[in-house]
């Protein structure tokens, strides 16, 4: 019973981890917390449906079109919003990212209707028994992809020259531009990368959750996962996501479903108040 519970909760955790990775990528790369990221994930899944409806494409080519469209979306968000607001107050940036999410959500609601859509599984959703525990291939794919994305991003940031350039650009824009890094191009790359990641996450997650305009509320769980792991740590995002999934499942199974819904928000508040650097993060000192 407990083993089964843990296995299925790790799937939920991997979903949170995937969303959290996107947050951390944007925050680590550009210093912006993207409050609309959850809605961007939802939008990514809808892009596949829209491509199918508009061009009559089969599923896989539609996914390719959606990924291409999300490259454009990422460039649009940076070029149209985050670049013009690069010197605006933090408040304006927070509101702008909230607005991005709201626009995407309301666009989907207006264009595709407010009700839920069916979304195909990439792998078989039929459970397979492994050592007496039922495992679902489609869920394994989510865990695999989030670990794979983590590995890729980790290598990018820690082992490549380009990743170092990104970190430098985020750390000190003037310094980075003085040594020949074109900061705006770096930020553009981050926004495109995170937008593509959002679509990947959306395609994986949509069959599991209900694909409706309000699926973006998953974003808050992603936030909690990112905060739990430490907002600037990529491995922390994955650990935080899986930990959150397990804690939710345990609370739901042994206490009450009300607590299951509430626990992630409680964790969010508790971590921010007690240990704002999270589990793996490094505390940033505020400069005066």
């Amino acid at each position, binding site marked *: 019973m407990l083993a089964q519970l843990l296995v299925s909760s790790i799937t939920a955790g991997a979903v949170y981890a995937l969303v959290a990775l996107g947050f951390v990528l944007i925050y680590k790369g550009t210093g912006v917390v993207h409050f609309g990221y959850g809605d961007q994930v939802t939008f990514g899944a809808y892009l596949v449906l829209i491509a199918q409806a508009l061009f009559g494409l089969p599923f896989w080519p539609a996914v390719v079109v959606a990924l291409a469209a999300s490259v454009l979306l990422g460039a649009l968000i940076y070029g*149209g919003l985050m670049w013009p607001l690069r010197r605006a107050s933090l408040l304006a940036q927070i509101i*702008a990212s*909230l*607005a991005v999410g709201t626009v995407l959500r309301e666009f989907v609601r*207006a264009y595709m209707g407010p009700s839920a859509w069916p979304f195909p599984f990439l792998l078989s959703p039929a459970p397979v028994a492994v050592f007496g525990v039922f495992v679902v291939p489609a869920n394994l794919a989510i865990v695999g992809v989030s670990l794979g994305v983590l590995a890729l991003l980790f290598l990018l940031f820690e082992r490549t020259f380009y990743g170092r350039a990104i970190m430098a650009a985020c750390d000190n824009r003037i310094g980075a531009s003085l040594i020949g890094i074109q900061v705006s191009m770096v930020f553009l790359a981050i926004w495109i990368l995170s937008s593509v990641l959002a679509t990947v996450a959306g395609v994986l997650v949509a069959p599991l959750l209900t694909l409706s305009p309000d699926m973006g509320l998953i974003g808050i769980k992603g936030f909690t996962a990112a*905060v739990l792991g430490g907002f600037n740590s990529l491995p922390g995002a994955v650990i935080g996501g899986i930990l959150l999934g397990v804690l939710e499942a345990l609370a739901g199974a042994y206490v009450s479903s*009300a607590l299951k819904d509430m626990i992630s*928000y409680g964790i969010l508040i508790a971590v921010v108040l007690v240990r*704002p650097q999270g589990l793996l993060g490094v505390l940033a000192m505020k400069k005066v």
Partner: protein
Amino acid sequence: MLARSLFAMVAALAFLAAPHVLAEFHLFQICLIAGTALVVLGLVVVTGFAGQISLAQAAFVALGGYGSAILATRWGFPLWAGIPVVAVAVSVVGFLLGQMTLRVSGHYLALVTMAVTAIVQIALIYSDSITGGAAGMPVPTFEIFGYALSTGGQLYYVIVPVTAALFLAVHNLNRSHYGRALAAIRQSETAAELMGLNVLRYKAAAFGASGFLGAIGGGLLAPLSTYLDPAQFGITHSVYFLAVAVVGGMASPLGALVGSTIFVFLPDFLQGFQSYLGLVFALLLLGFIVLRPNGLASFNLPRALSSALARTGDGR
């Protein structure tokens, strides 16, 4: 001085004349604008004046609406007394939430206030026996001095004066020592602290004020809509109130009124495109934060005219 008393007289006359001139539906809309403006005024105080982002406004509205309605249905406590009592209690909640700004600011403050809204909403949904759960609960009639006020035209006599009084109070507070302290904190907390201001207490008080205004607004809007549905008090509604504040302008109390007027009348203008309403709201928010982050109320017409004249003068 003369201009001010003249303005007050015109306003009082307009207030008394409106119910005789306008249709019932328009009075309802005026009440809706006034109630929303009160809620948004709370955001203007905490975000516009003190510079602290808050996504907890929908939670304050929910607590005000549900709190006074529950007091009335379960203990027979009339709404006219229940709304201010609950609002004081909610302002204490807001004050305590504001104490967290000692440790939390910026992104994290947005996240924490967001989480507070979500927790309040979930608590309302799961407390079936008191709040009616996900199905919601009806709001008892607003009774005062033996009169039962149920329609917009009747509630008008309560909502509009209360709103006017609270707007005046916030306007005066903003021009007092208190308002200047908040402005100093908004510009630089460190500098404000060096000047000897107790920064934390001021920020917490601003949150308390936003809780009070949000709860009064929520308490007054509840009998107007006659029904409380927990789905109306989620994070998206906190963002909606923030959008109203941004479009109206957060630098002055007037912005709350301007924004609420726009957002209440917009559905009328978009009658054929109701399904695009949410998208239009969202695009307005996006457009204003990029192009005019200070909002509509920041338009200073005389100054804009004179600078335009000066420019044409230079072009000779």
